[in-house]
């Protein structure tokens, strides 16, 4: 308090010093000042005027010594009140303000010498000494220490303060009734008795009740003090001696730029003055337009379900879970539980324990804050074996070829093609050196050999059993050869078929293919019939027979119109089925039972009806370059292999897209063949392997074909990047013959 006052006084002093000549104004101002700021500090209000008003001090002081001389405690309040009044009076006349208490010179009673006596300093309400007028000087100790004492403390002089007489309840009641001032009194703890409240305290209580500032002297509407405003009040001297900067008086370049920018915009019409601010009328209905349909209204938050009986702390018995339900609930995963709590019965609400999931729930919310998944799922642990489709074991699908029984070696060049006789006893194989060998399937001994000029492109044995011969495709020629050791009946029939005594009538349209028969009495070393394909038609890369053995189709590797020929044995006539061929034809096939004809170009397989001469469907295997195909003996399924290692299984009834794509080879597929009787097919590839598949086709249209990889037959060597060039099954036995680029023809037995 003292320091605060000091500051204020210095401030005031300064003002007084600075403006001595404006006394009238300051005086007028000072009239109000004490009331708001310094009402309780009249003595320190002004230093400079100490000497000017001595008499007022004397008047004010005149009371104090009297009172002090009495030293009465009970009258304290009255002195306070009086002093207030006095101060109020003092404030009314600023001349009576004393900065210091006036000392009085009196004659001491003891020494009989004059001495200066100062009036006692009056402790105000907010001073520290205001609390020190407590007559009980025990301090802030619990007063129940004195409960069994006759006194309640000690006064300033160490005298005991005895406990005032305490009336009983009846006395208290009588006091309240009789004493009209009893409601204005409060119990004083230190004195253990009721003390009447002063008017000031009552005023504070009233103010607090009225939500006002408890300080009665606080003025919220204090006028502003104009310290530096007004004439002769402004600072005339500069605060610093620095010269005035240039920017104070040079026009700003940047302002000019900004202004010029605006001017330019106005000139160019970008800024239009008095432009209408908005087209919208001042008042309009905000719900007139329908809501934007692109943004649906936000979904209302779902309403939480109301608690049911089960959630009660004291649910009925039927809601309580049985032991089995409890076990089941505990065994379930947290996510799978229907309810996240179990009903439990408590006798009273106070017996309900704290929420045991509190920490976990808080942790979950923290995870939400971190955007971490709340449910921590275990990693999916799937056994990769379980993803493999269930296929029957290959051992249960025997017989299938599993080992190489023998191999027949062609001395020079790759063995490119082979054919197996319809009875499955003989194999004829041709190599690129122009040698065709006939040998037994089971022994592998070459029985006969024919040599031709060029590469042997293809071989196939006529499927008829009443005649026996095979066809060899060399450059621009098809040779028909009869094997040795035939029964005479078969031999005669074959000879009469291939070199008939009476030629059938020539067809109306002459064919460019010439049929040349040698005389039937010639030896078996020479081909009995030769078909001269048009020159430059190239090497017949494929020869395929119709199932009945009357029609023969050949595909030459030279592109153009003459690459595909269909030859009819009985009429000795050849015709080209396609007038115009787009792209290179890779392979052709006869349907085993219908007059259908499959043509594989580089990307697609087309199915034609030869009788009606129309395109039936186009199969799209999705292979970049088709190398081979074969049709199932039932005629409903087709397999297509490509140089891009893919093997497609088509269900012809189902779709023109593959039913299944198999990709087991690591290099280009070269040849495919279905076994005529067993549910087997084989594919050979440039990776030197032959893969044998079980392919069971069901008569039931609803059952999908079963394709099971059975065996990889290894044994052929890769030569010049070429592996196994052709595979053929032996009819009647689950045996496979394969011709490889290494010049070997192998027979694989079960």
């Amino acid at each position: 308090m003292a320091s605060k006052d000091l500051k204020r006084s210095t401030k005031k002093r300064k003002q007084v010093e600075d403006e001595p000549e404006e006394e009238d104004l300051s005086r007028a101002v000072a009239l109000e000042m004490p009331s708001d700021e310094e009402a309780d500090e009249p003595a320190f209000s002004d230093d400079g005027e100490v000497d000017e008003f001595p008499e007022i001090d004397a008047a004010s002081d005149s009371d104090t010594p009297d009172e002090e001389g009495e030293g009465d405690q009970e009258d304290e309040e009255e002195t306070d009140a009086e002093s207030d009044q006095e101060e109020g009076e003092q404030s009314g006349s600023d001349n009576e303000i004393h900065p210091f208490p006036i000392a009085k010179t009196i004659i001491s009673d003891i020494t009989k010498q004059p001495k200066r006596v100062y009036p006692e300093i009056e402790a105000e309400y907010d001073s520290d000494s205001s609390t020190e007028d407590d007559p009980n000087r025990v301090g802030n100790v619990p007063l129940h220490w004195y409960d069994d004492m006759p006194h309640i403390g000690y006064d300033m002089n160490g005298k005991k303060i005895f406990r005032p007489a305490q009336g009983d309840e009846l006395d208290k009641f009588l006091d309240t009734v009789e004493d009209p001032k009893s409601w204005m009194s409060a119990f004083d703890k230190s004195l253990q008795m009721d003390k009447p409240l002063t008017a000031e305290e009552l005023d504070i209580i009233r103010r607090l009740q009225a939500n006002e500032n408890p300080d009665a002297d606080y003025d919220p509407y204090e006028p502003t003090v104009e310290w530096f405003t007004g004439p002769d009040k402004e600072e005339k001297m500069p605060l610093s001696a620095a010269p005035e900067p240039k920017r104070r008086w040079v026009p700003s370049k940047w302002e000019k730029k900004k202004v010029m920018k605006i001017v330019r915009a106005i000139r160019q019409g970008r800024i239009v003055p008095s432009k209408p601010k908005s087209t919208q009328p001042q008042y309009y209905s905000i719900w007139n337009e329908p809501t934007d349909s692109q943004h649906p209204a936000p979904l209302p938050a779902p309403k939480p379900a109301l608690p049911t009986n089960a959630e009660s702390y004291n649910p009925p018995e039927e809601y309580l879970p049985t032991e089995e339900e409890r076990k089941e609930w505990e065994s379930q995963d947290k996510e799978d539980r229907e309810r996240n709590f179990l009903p439990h019965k408590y006798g009273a609400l106070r017996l309900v324990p704290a929420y045991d999931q509190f920490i976990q729930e808080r942790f979950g919310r923290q995870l939400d804050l971190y955007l971490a998944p709340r449910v921590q799922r275990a990693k999916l642990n799937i056994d990769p074996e379980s993803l493999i489709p269930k296929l029957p074991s290959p051992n249960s699908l025997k017989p299938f070829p599993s080992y190489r029984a023998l191999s027949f070696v062609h001395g020079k060049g790759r063995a490119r093609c082979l054919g197996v006789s319809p009875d499955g006893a003989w194999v004829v194989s041709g190599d690129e050196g122009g040698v065709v060998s006939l040998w037994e399937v089971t022994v592998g001994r070459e029985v006969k050999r024919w040599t031709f000029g060029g590469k042997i492109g293809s071989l196939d044995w006529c499927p008829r059993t009443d005649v026996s011969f095979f066809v060899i495709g060399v450059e621009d020629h098809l040779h028909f050869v009869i094997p040795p050791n035939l029964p005479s009946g078969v031999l005669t029939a074959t000879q009469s078929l291939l070199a008939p005594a009476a030629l059938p009538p020539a067809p109306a349209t002459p064919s460019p293919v010439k049929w040349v028969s040698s005389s039937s009495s010639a030896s078996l070393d020479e081909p009995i019939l030769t078909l001269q394909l048009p020159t430059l038609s190239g090497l017949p890369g494929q020869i395929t027979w119709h199932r009945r053995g009357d029609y023969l189709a050949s595909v030459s590797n030279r592109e153009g119109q003459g690459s595909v020929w269909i030859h009819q044995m009985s009429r000795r006539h050849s015709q080209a089925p396609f007038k115009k061929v787009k792209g290179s034809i890779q392979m052709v096939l006869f349907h085993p039972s219908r007059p259908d004809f499959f043509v594989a170009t580089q990307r697609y397989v087309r199915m034609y009806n030869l009788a009606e001469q129309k395109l039936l469907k186009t199969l799209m295997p999705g292979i970049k370059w088709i190398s081979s195909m074969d049709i199932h003996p039932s005629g409903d399924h087709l397999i297509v292999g490509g140089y891009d290692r893919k093997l497609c299984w088509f269900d012809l009834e189902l779709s023109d897209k593959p039913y299944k794509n198999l990709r087991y080879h690591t290099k280009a597929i070269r040849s495919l063949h279905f076994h005529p009787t067993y549910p087997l097919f084989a594919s050979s590839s440039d990776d030197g392997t032959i893969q044998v598949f079980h392919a069971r086709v069901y008569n039931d249209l609803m059952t999908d074909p079963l394709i099971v990889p059975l065996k990889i037959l290894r044994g052929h060597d890769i030569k010049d990047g070429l592996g196994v060039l052709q595979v053929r099954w032996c009819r009647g036995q689950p045996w496979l013959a394969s011709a490889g680029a290494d010049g070997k023809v192998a027979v694989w037995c079960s």
Partner: protein
Amino acid sequence: MASATESTRPVVFTTSTAYPLPTQKFMIPTSWRRYQLSQLINKALSLDKPIPFDFLVRGEILRGTLAEWCSERGVGEEETLDIEYIESVLPPQQMSSMPHEDWVSCVSCQIPRTFVTGSYDGSIRMFSYAQQLLQTTHIHDAPITSLCVLPQSTGNRTYTIATASQDLTARLTKIQSDTDSPDAPSSSQTLASLHLHTSPLSSISSNSSGSHLLTSSWDALVGLWDTAIPAEDEISPDDLAPGRVSKRRKLANKDKSESGVRRKAPAQVLKSHTARVSKAVFSSEESAAGRSTAYSCGFDSTVRVWDVESGVCLQTINASEKPMTDLALMSSSQTALASATDRTVTAYDLRVSPSSSSPAIASMLHPALPSCLSVPGSHTHTPSSTSNSNMHQFISGAYDGVVRLWDLRSVKAPIASFKVAEGKKVLGVDWLGAAGLVGVGGEGGLEVWKIGADGAAGQT
């Protein structure tokens, strides 16, 4: 291991060889192997020349120690073991090699001191034991697949050889030869050709008396023929081969002895097979009623038993997916051996009724396709000549060029094996049991090997 060496086991030795031990119990240490047991017998009998023995414990050849055998079989410590010992098979030795220009499909050792081979060039060749080529007779234009020498009682040096060929016929050829003096002029004459089949023939065999022949063919037929040479052709050439074709085919034969060749028709045709018949043989002993029995096997995975007189299939043994390549009858005529393309040789019990579920006794696995089988003395037809020691044994030739000697009592592995030619197929074997000689024909020609401890074979 000290306790193991000390533990002994009561053993009774039996034998059917000429070296019997007194019948008494021996306490044999269980750590003993074949070698120790063989030494024991040699020492007990104090043989001047040591003879190695093999030991059959309860029908199985002992290959490890006795303790191992017992622990494998779970035989108790105190049980008495019956051990039969047989003369051990010595490691086979190659006696001679006679290369051929073409593959040899069949071998016969039946003519004394002579080997007869049939080759893919259509000729039969006779070799003496001194590796001397006695005679080459061109009989067929097509490869010869099988041959058999008709047994006969006459003591002269004239033999009738039946050959089967891929040219759909079989032929009977009379050959006169003197094995002792190879320089002596030898002659041959084709007596008859047998016409039935429409596919290449796979085998030909005769009965013990030489009166009948059996041919099997790829056309699923088995033909029964007598060996009598008819005075006239039983089949006219026109019936056989209408048209000019057959004449051309017979042209080669006409030059030689076409006039003397009689065309024979079969006495009986046995039809029941559904696929190629690969072998047909007569039973070595006639049944009680005097009716002879024949056996055949084929690619339809069956072994069929025929009554020859009536031509009726008496019994069919069905194996699953085993196309059979060769058939041999054990000398007891109770077991048939059949080699199949699934690389097994399976023994079938012929005594069981057809209703029995599995007539297969044992199956012997080969690493390659077994092509031919032979049992000792299969054509001598004198059971006494085969010693009892090898009545359970047979040999098999396979496409990997290895000939294996098997004992039916130990089917897990062959007793002995020898490699005839690296990577060359063996196509025909013939085991002359008494002499211990094995003729092996194949891709590389004829080789003669010696198997068995019989000292009588050591003449060459």
